[in-house]
């Protein structure tokens, strides 16, 4: 695994070097055109300086920025135990400390990972993802994100993104200065004038093309990283079919997410969050169908299996993974899928569960009504009575001390039954229970028990 990371670091350095060259080139050309060829080195240095400042800023606040922009809320273990367990399992399989978990209040299924220089990484998932996926599929997605963390993709993509930004900035500045400050140019009728013109033309060309090339390089990197993360996911979970069916489900639900603020963070997501995004050279992710095909074509779970499937599906000669990674181990067997019932059978129930989870986290109070509706009362609600939106019954909002007004529960049969008190404690009634009233042990609330 270290081989893969090191090889990627080497490849990354190459790509970063290319982009750096572009940056310095544009800076130098611009300086040469504006202030004379002997100032070219100053221009190059200035361009690098811009990049350095932006990079420092990005690396320091980068991860928090991504999470805040997505309005992600931190999760505790009791909020989503299955997700927590899955994440910890994948962290063990990857040999990493457990990342922090966050939840995004969005129905479009998606997930992303961020990491900061020091301190634990973070993984955020949307509510839509939790609602739709089975355990195996969720494990595949989390394995993919953990793969990103393990491969240090986040650092790399941040650096690359900052590079693209710097190139765009420097090019923009150069063009602007040329446009507005063009009158103050040295050289006039001298022979240097022609060279000056040529330099000018080159600079303009570079300033227009450099951002384009930078973006192409950036997206090529991004796609490469996604394939690598897919391969890592298969290797950690030993079950590529899980990630494959998760990707299928995610791409099927084409609820596009909010647009503009996601653009910069698109490469961090597992599937492109922009609904109408460009395909091909300018896409940050490889086409989902291709990723699914590769995963499903895998006959094992190791690097060589992924490479074989990649060659089979994509067809061309360019390798996906580097030679050292491929040489480090042989084929690895996949495991059986886990037969844990998926959410297809009870989709509404799961939707309700997830929205309850969100409400509980936002400190809503749940008041059960007789007609079956669970009234959600926000914390800031001022008043001590609330009307049920469906049947119109009045309910008292339970406070810490037991009020005199009871809530009711209607039995559904004559066997063991469990239901929730408004204080969230689970209460049980045995078949032998014949009284009309019971008291909740947690909050002291008196509850009327009505026969079935």
């Amino acid at each position: 695994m270290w081989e893969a990371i090191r090889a990627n670091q080497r490849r990354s350095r190459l790509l970063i070097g290319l982009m750096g060259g572009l940056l310095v080139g544009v800076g130098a050309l611009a300086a040469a055109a504006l202030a004379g060829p002997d100032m070219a080195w100053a221009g190059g240095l200035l361009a690098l300086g811009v990049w350095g400042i932006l990079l420092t800023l990005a690396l320091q606040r980068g991860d928090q920025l991504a999470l805040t922009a997505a309005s992600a809320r931190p999760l505790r273990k009791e909020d989503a135990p299955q997700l927590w367990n899955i994440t910890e399992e994948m962290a063990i399989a990857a040999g990493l400390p457990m990342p922090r978990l966050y939840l995004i209040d969005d129905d479009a299924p998606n997930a992303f990972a961020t990491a900061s220089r020091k301190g634990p990484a973070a993984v955020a998932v949307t509510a839509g993802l939790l609602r739709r996926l089975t355990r195996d599929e969720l494990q595949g997605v989390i394995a993919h994100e953990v793969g990103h963390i393990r491969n240090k993709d986040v650092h790399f993509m941040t650096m690359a993104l900052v590079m693209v930004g710097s190139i765009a900035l420097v090019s923009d500045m150069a063009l602007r200065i040329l446009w507005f400050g063009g009158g103050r140019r040295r050289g006039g009728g001298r022979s240097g004038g022609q060279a000056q013109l040529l330099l000018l033309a080159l600079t303009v060309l570079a300033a227009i093309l450099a951002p384009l090339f930078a973006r192409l390089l950036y997206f090529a990197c991004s796609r490469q990283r996604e394939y690598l993360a897919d391969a890592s996911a298969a290797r950690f979970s030993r079950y590529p079919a899980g990630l494959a069916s998760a990707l299928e489900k995610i791409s099927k639900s084409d609820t596009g997410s909010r647009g503009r603020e996601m653009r910069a963070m698109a490469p961090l997501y597992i599937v492109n969050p922009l609904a109408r995004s460009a395909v091909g050279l300018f896409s940050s992710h490889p086409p989902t169908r291709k990723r699914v095909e590769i995963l499903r074509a895998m006959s094992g779970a190791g690097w060589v299996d992924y490479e074989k499937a990649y060659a089979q599906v994509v067809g061309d000669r360019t390798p996906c993974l580097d030679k050292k990674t491929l040489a480090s181990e042989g084929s690895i067997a996949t495991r059986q899928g886990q037969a844990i019932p998926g959410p297809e059978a009870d989709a509404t129930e799961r939707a309700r569960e997830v929205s309850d989870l969100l409400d509980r986290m936002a400190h809503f109070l749940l008041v059960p009504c007789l007609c079956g509706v669970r009234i959600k009362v926000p914390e800031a609600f001022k008043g001590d009575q609330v009307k049920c939106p469906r049947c119109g019954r009045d309910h008292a909002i339970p406070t810490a001390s037991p009020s005199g007004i009871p809530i009711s529960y209607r039995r559904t049969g004559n066997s063991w039954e469990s239901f929730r008190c408004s204080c969230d404690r689970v209460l049980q009634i045995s078949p032998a229970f014949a009284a009309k009233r019971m008291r909740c042990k947690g909050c002291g609330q008196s509850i009327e028990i009505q026969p079935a």
Partner: protein
Amino acid sequence: MVLFLGIVLALMVGVALWAMGIYNGLVTLRNQVKNAWSQIDVQLKRRHDLIPNLVETVKGYAGHERETLEKVISARARAVSAQGVQEQSQAEQGLSGALGRLMLVVEQYPDLKANQNFLSLQEELTSTENRIGFARQHYNDSVMTYNTKIQKFPDNFVAGSFSFTAESFFELQDEAAREAPKVSF
């Protein structure tokens, strides 16, 4: 003459640096192997800690399945007190078997299956079994990477001179503990 000496010196320094790099890499890999091994231990202990809670929950609903419950308790006691890799691995397999049989018994009690407490315990148990599996997997992966590295040329020179030895894989004797036990009437 001086130039010749200079070149030789530069070469020696180069070789020394390269060897140092290899050595450090091997140390990292070996420590990763050790870490992965202790991770397996952590997850096994986690399973031991979950079991009393599980037994109590099941007792409330299926009290007359005493035999199965007692088998689980005794298997756990044996696993906790096991010493040495061989004994540990056997005891853990026995525990897995007993848990499997308990899960079969639970199938007959729909009320138990619907109990929230039991469901969250079941999720924890499933996760623990998975974690043990993944910890083993990570350990074996680390061992494979480490062994490959010390055997490959030219790293094997450094490995040999500093006595880095190959580690052994963690293999279960047989997967029979995982198959469904036959219920006879």
